[in-house]
């Protein structure tokens, strides 16, 4: 027995830097907004999943929302944390175990590239000591090879970043809201060739929450439901070129995003041609370009032409990262994927204001990717 899953409500605490405000409080604020948007009370919520990297115990939001005794489970799964919380919440509704639940993500990171103990990622201890334990370095090596193989130019990297800053300027919840020209971006400091300072997102702070329920439950509250058609998570296979690894196999396999994406399309019964608006993991401008192809939204190399023609702009044929993506919003890991769902829901409801995709979009697509080689995909539709 299984039931359709509806996204009943979404809430978002702005992304940025909020000195003096705790991650838990941001999670509480986002949860209250999601409950209000859903038209339900906290006491209606039957279970929850919380995601965070910095917060040991996201479940502490319950102490500010009401200690109702519900099962509340905490997850951490790298940059795919939010996708994991969402997928688990959806599963418990789809199988009929519960009727309504909440996924909450929150984080509060220090500025600058993430760091950790490499042994926690099954990398050798010396890997960090010699200066290789950096996600930025991996993304740079991946896009450099991709540019070589598929004819992507440095200008296209700048176009992607400029588009995301432009979209971020239209988003009151974004962190970086100042438009930057392609020239500004190409003149910024090189961090890891070919990627420059303004081509990267930054770890920051924020929270997001999503209330999910069964289609039956939703009938009482909305005539116009947004369905969660798929939520998948996949890890790297042998042969994928992945972050935080001191070596790669000669025998090559596709990235985990490809497998998460294929599984999501299958689960949703929706194909890449049906996608009207997408939010893709743009840890850097190159990642957005690669992820367009890994998610089946174009062929390898086609991005050079599509992006030059403006296809990925808000008014284009394939709008991507309409809220500014990670580049303009930054990445509070626990919340990042739920931010994507928040934006997709606004777009499908026609509530995205200045950044609304025209033409009444019906299918929204979200994708996360991160260390140590985990991807999550979400598909929504009216």
């Amino acid at each position: 027995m299984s039931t359709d899953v509806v996204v009943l409500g979404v809430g978002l605490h702005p992304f940025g830097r909020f000195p003096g405000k705790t991650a838990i409080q941001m999670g509480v604020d986002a949860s209250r907004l999601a409950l209000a948007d859903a038209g339900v009370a906290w006491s209606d919520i039957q279970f929850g999943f919380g995601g965070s990297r910095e917060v040991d115990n996201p479940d502490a939001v319950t102490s500010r929302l009401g200690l109702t005794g519900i099962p509340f489970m905490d997850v951490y799964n790298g940059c795919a944390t939010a996708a994991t919380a969402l997928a688990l919440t959806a599963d418990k509704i789809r199988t009929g175990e519960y009727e309504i639940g909440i996924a909450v993500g929150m984080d509060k990171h220090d500025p600058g590239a993430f760091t950790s103990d490499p042994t926690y990622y099954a990398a050798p201890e010396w890997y960090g000591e010699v200066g290789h334990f950096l996600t930025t370095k991996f993304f740079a090596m991946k896009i450099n090879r991709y540019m070589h193989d598929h004819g992507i130019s440095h200008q296209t990297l700048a176009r992607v970043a400029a588009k995301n800053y432009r979209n971020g300027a239209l988003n009151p919840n974004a962190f970086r809201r100042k438009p930057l020209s392609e020239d500004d971006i190409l003149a910024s400091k090189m961090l890891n060739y070919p990627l420059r300072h303004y081509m990267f997102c930054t770890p920051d702070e924020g929270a997001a929450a999503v209330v999910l329920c069964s289609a039956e439950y939703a009938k009482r509250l909305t005539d116009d439901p947004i369905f969660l058609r798929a939520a998948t998570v996949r890890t790297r296979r042998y042969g994928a070129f992945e972050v935080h690894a001191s070596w790669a196999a000669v025998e090559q396999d596709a990235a985990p995003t490809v497998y998460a994406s294929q599984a999501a399309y299958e689960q949703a019964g929706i194909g890449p041609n049906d996608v009207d608006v997408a939010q893709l993991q743009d840890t850097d401008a190159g990642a957005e370009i690669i992820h367009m192809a890994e998610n089946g939204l174009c062929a390898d190399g086609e991005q050079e032409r599509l992006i030059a023609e403006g296809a990925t702009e808000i008014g284009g044929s394939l709008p991507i990262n309409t809220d500014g993506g990670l580049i303009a919003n930054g990445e509070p890991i626990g919340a990042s994927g739920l931010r994507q769902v928040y934006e997709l829901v606004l777009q499908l409801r026609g509530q995205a204001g200045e950044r609304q995709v025209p033409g009444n979009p019906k299918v929204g697509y979200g994708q996360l990717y991160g260390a140590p080689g985990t991807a999550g995909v979400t598909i929504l539709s009216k």
Partner: protein
Amino acid sequence: MARVAFAPDVFTDTDPPELIGSRCGQCAAVAFPFQSTCARCGADTERHLLPRRGTLWTFTTQDFLPKEPYAGGETPDTFQPFGVGLIELVGPDGPVVRVEGRLTIGDPEQLRIGDEFELVLVPFRTDPDGTEVVTFAFAPVGGQS
């Protein structure tokens, strides 16, 4: 003056040095550094020395001082950018594994995917007692660095 490796069991104490990897007893998949079980099939592995030469599969540059646990000992003022590459090491029977390592070239204009590189040891840092710590790196074959 003492000269020591930056970490044990990464390369051999021979001239020339060789990287110490592992090879799966079941499926022959090769990894670096040594890991006791196979990344492809999970079976037990054996110590396996890697070919010293190969081609540059991809590269980047490290243009900013990494945060801890980086232990190069530089300050933001003394830090010199370095190249990082993935070298596809080639043995008598063809490519064996791709290994990530420092490159002796840090200028991206002088690096090309497909160029031939070989294993070398390079100074990593000098400790307060004068001990020179060395790490492995890849240099262009023919030494045009």
